[in-house]
């Protein structure tokens, strides 16, 4: 794989209105590449692993930017930066889970420009795929990571289907836990997608990690007030505290009646191709109190059904321990 120093020759469009941007993505279809902070863009282009025919910069569109209160919660524009999310007082007060997740993304410089839309829309981090190899995800008929010699320490425990790459986004786990809704627009109209359905696995769509169509733009993310101010827990385990993607992360929301858990959502990142909900843990958590004993009881349920690859068995105890930690009083 040669390494290139320079950007390929790609035209850049900087629409100021959402309508113009929608026309551009319609016009360029699969060749159109929507730009937020661009931090998951330039590497692909410089390595010639992806060859879009046009870059469409969304940062000039005011309607896509900012955090607004709605009748039922918050609406976050897709080009709102992670830094703005971390610093926002409303998010800090009611949805601190999202702020914690955003604060663990990449590095300070990347959070300064990286957008929420870009973070949830980023592509798989499997290095075979990123090297431009013709794997399943790239439209080929082979998975390099799931082969006898494949290096798959970072890959999936659950729901793999041909491709074994995992969901890399830290904010995605938090948004699934908070039951967010993604708003997508195209020239043909507007679509609301539950965060859980927004992220799709390889069995549904082998070349795309989200249910966005090529002519659609993610315009905003809505967070309902349902979980506002409830008990949150977010933790990300990565090789380095900066830059690295989660080996395993966990985002938990819980409503409490005194010391007792009445309702909860447990979502793990880094273990499946989508944010992975721990349904069994959620069911078993109802009626329990926060304690080490509860943690031990729930931990065993976390990794049921895991199908580890050659090098990622360690993710099983990691998941279990993150559930234990989320349940500490």
């Amino acid at each position: 794989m040669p390494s290139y120093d320079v950007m390929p020759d790609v035209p850049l469009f900087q629409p100021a209105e959402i309508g113009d941007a929608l026309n551009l993505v319609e016009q360029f279809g699969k060749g159109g590449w929507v730009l937020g902070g661009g931090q998951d863009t330039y590497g692909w282009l410089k390595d010639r692993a992806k060859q879009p025919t046009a870059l469409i910069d969304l940062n000039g569109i005011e309607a896509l930017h900012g955090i607004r209160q709605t009748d039922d919660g918050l609406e976050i524009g897709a080009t709102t930066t992670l830094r703005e999310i971390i610093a926002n007082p409303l998010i800090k007060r009611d949805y601190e889970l999202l702020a914690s997740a955003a604060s663990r993304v990449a590095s300070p410089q990347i959070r300064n420009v990286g957008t929420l839309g870009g973070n949830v829309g980023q592509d798989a981090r499997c290095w075979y795929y990123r090297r431009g190899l013709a794997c399943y995800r790239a439209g080929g008929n082979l998975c390099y990571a799931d082969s006898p010699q494949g290096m798959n320490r970072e890959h999936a425990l659950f729901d793999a289907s041909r491709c074994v790459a995992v969901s890399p986004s830290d904010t995605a786990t938090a948004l699934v836990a908070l039951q967010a809704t993604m708003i997508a627009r195209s020239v043909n109209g507007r679509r609301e997608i539950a965060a859980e359905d927004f992220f799709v696995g390889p069995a549904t769509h082998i070349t795309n990690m989200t249910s966005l169509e090529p002519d659609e733009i993610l315009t905003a993310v809505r967070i309902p007030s349902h979980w506002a101010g409830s008990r949150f827990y977010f933790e990300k385990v990565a090789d380095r505290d900066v830059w690295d993607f989660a080996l395993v992360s966990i985002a938990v929301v819980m409503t409490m009646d005194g010391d007792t858990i009445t309702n909860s959502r447990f979502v793990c990142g880094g273990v499946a191709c989508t944010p992975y909900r721990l349904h069994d843990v959620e069911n078993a958590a109802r009626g329990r109190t926060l304690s080490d004993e509860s943690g031990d009881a729930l931990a065993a349920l976390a990794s049921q059904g895991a199908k580890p690859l050659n090098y990622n068995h360690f993710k099983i105890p990691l998941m279990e321990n993150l559930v234990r930690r989320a349940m500490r009083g």
Partner: protein
Amino acid sequence: MKDPTTYFPGDSLNEADPPGLSAFRSSRRAFIKGVIASGAVAASSGYLLSGCAPGEGPAAGSVERLISLNVNGRIRRVDVLPNETLAMTLRYKLGLTGTKLACDRGECGACTVVIDGMTNYSCSTLTHTVGSRSVRTIEGLEGPDGELHPIQQAFIDELGPQCGFCTPGQIMSTVVLLERNPKPTRDEARRALSGNLCRCGAYDHYLNSVMRAAEVI
């Protein structure tokens, strides 16, 4: 164009000098910069000319090529390709080679510059997305008479750099940290500089430098 050995569009000192004096200032650095500015080095022509293949005009509706950039307080007119990164523009069009390119993938921090008070990886910023915002590079820190910025001086006094290649990036991250938080704890400094790698591993020296800079500013 002036004598190519002294012409350097990014160097305000040379532009302000009386014409006769500039020849005496000709140094190895000015010579290299002059060569870069005149595009005479074969290796650099690749950067400058990529995307300039004959017959390839910009697509309809795409961005203007000739733009104004606010760099270190000066408005600079510069011809920028649609796909050009800020690091390329700064280094190879404006001659501001203090901003270093290392990984070119937003994974090391050597190219860190400050845009409107925020640190950015200039290798992973399209120049066209900068717009009217102000760009500050390591060259913009020194005083009017060329005296070092107190942060630069602190980095020297504490022997911050080892090889020095990541230093401009480390200093730009420190500039932003100390503007926001003039008296950071060592841990806050560590977090503020966490987006800048140092392959020499001189992190503790850098943190010593930041703490000293916070004392003297």
